[in-house]
């Protein structure tokens, strides 16, 4: 058996719900560190940045599922919903940290930032795009909507991921490497789909 098939066989034995349990551990640990004063001088920024970065990693992971299956033969399809939902919950956490801890519920300033600050606007847009995806990430929604419509809706993952990466680039001072890495990864994963789509048309 090829190594990839062996991994596939092994993964078949792992239930998808374990991902939700595993996914809950890092934020819980992070919050514990922040609350106990172990996250440096600015625990609020620490929480916010880390949750945002993890959310981007999960977005990259969810976009990698299809290319990995197509080009490597690794089958992670059964985990895709869990990865996507975790990405949503991490973005939600990131948003709540911003509203509650960073902005301290100063609604006038929060709303002004959403409207006036392009990096906040685009981050908000990405978050709102994920909302219908999270709500319809269940079997009943797929049945009710029909596979085609459901799939079309879930293509929102692509602009949402791009919005997340641009949001990150737009908020940093100078030009650090990480935000560009995320954008490059996401663009690469989207380009892989484009190639397949054009080949299918030919």
């Amino acid at each position, binding site marked *: 058996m090829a190594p990839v098939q062996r991994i596939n066989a092994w993964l078949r034995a792992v239930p998808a719900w374990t991902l939700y349990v595993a996914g809950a551990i890092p934020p819980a640990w992070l919050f514990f560190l922040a609350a106990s004063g172990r996250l440096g*001088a600015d625990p609020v*920024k620490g929480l916010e940045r880390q949750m945002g970065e993890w959310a981007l990693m999960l977005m990259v992971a969810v976009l990698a599922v299809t290319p990995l299956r197509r080009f490597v033969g690794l089958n992670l399809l059964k985990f895709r919903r869990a990865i996507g939902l975790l990405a949503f919950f991490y973005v939600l956490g990131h948003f709540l940290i911003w509203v509650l801890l960073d902005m301290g519920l100063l609604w006038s*300033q929060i709303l*002004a930032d959403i409207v006036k*600050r392009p990096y906040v606007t685009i981050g908000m847009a990405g978050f709102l795009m994920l909302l219908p995806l999270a709500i319809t990430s269940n079997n009943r929604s797929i049945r009710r909507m029909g596979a085609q419509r459901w799939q079309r809706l879930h293509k929102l993952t692509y602009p949402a991921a791009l919005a997340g990466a641009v949001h990150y680039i737009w908020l940093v001072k100078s030009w650090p490497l990480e935000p560009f890495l995320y954008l490059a990864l996401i663009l690469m994963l989207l380009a892989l789909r484009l190639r397949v789509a054009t080949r299918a048309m030919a």
Partner: protein
Amino acid sequence: MTYRFRTDLRWSDVTPKGVFLNRRQLMAGAAAFGLARPALAKIAAQPSAYSTDEVPNRFEDITSYNNYYEFGTGKEDPAANAGSLTVKPWTVKIDGMVDRPGDYGLEDILAHVTLEERIYRFRCVEAWSMVVPWIGFQLSDLLARAGVRASAEYVAFETLMRPEEMPGQNYPILEWPYREGLRLDEAMHPLTILATGLYGEVLPNQSGAPIRLVVPWKYGFKSIKAIVRITLTDSQPPTSWNMQNPGEYGFYSNVNPEVDHPRWSQASERPLGAGLFAGRVPTRKFNGYDEVAGLYAGQDLAVDF
């Protein structure tokens, strides 16, 4: 077992605030009566009327959360990487429109000034703030010693350029060396100091050792670190962040809640050190140092941002 002496203890654990304040009184008392320096403190400094009575942030917060891109762009990078910087011997070249230009050794500079403790609010352009107990002297004292000529209008500052000890300088994050500048009246203002110490100790490398500028009514990036050159000039000098992004960082960069950074609001700030749920406080114009307002009379600070 290698790490058995590593503990979770902090400076504040071994130095409760009461003792801390006591120590400060002791130092002040010793200075007042001309007594020997207390053994605890390495630097004796006079208290100053310019100090705020707000409680300073913890030593380890001040020294572990720094923007000092010469040592990396992460906030913890300077604390991790600045230890290798050689700060002895150190000379500051003072040139341009002065009567006595030359290379001034740091010991020589310090021999001619009275050190004071200046507890200042520190407001970062990223909308967080701290309170920092600096030790330093007024920049005007050093400028007077060098003899500023009547033709001088601006003061330009330069940070050390030493890529082998400052790894960040190997990357084009900013145009190195770091440069800053002040108008002469800003430089001569009694609030403007050159700091050589922090919390009664010699300035840690990540905080700008051995000598740095502190201008408390301007965003933190104006307070240039590890200064090796001070030039008096008659034209507005180029400054690093303004060179990198002139639309976002002006020459003046006074703390001003009415003038937003193009990408984020400056209306409020998060004071660090007060815990997860401390929230925000409104930002004050000139960071609350209203006595400098007169320097900008007749200027539109939305234009001269």
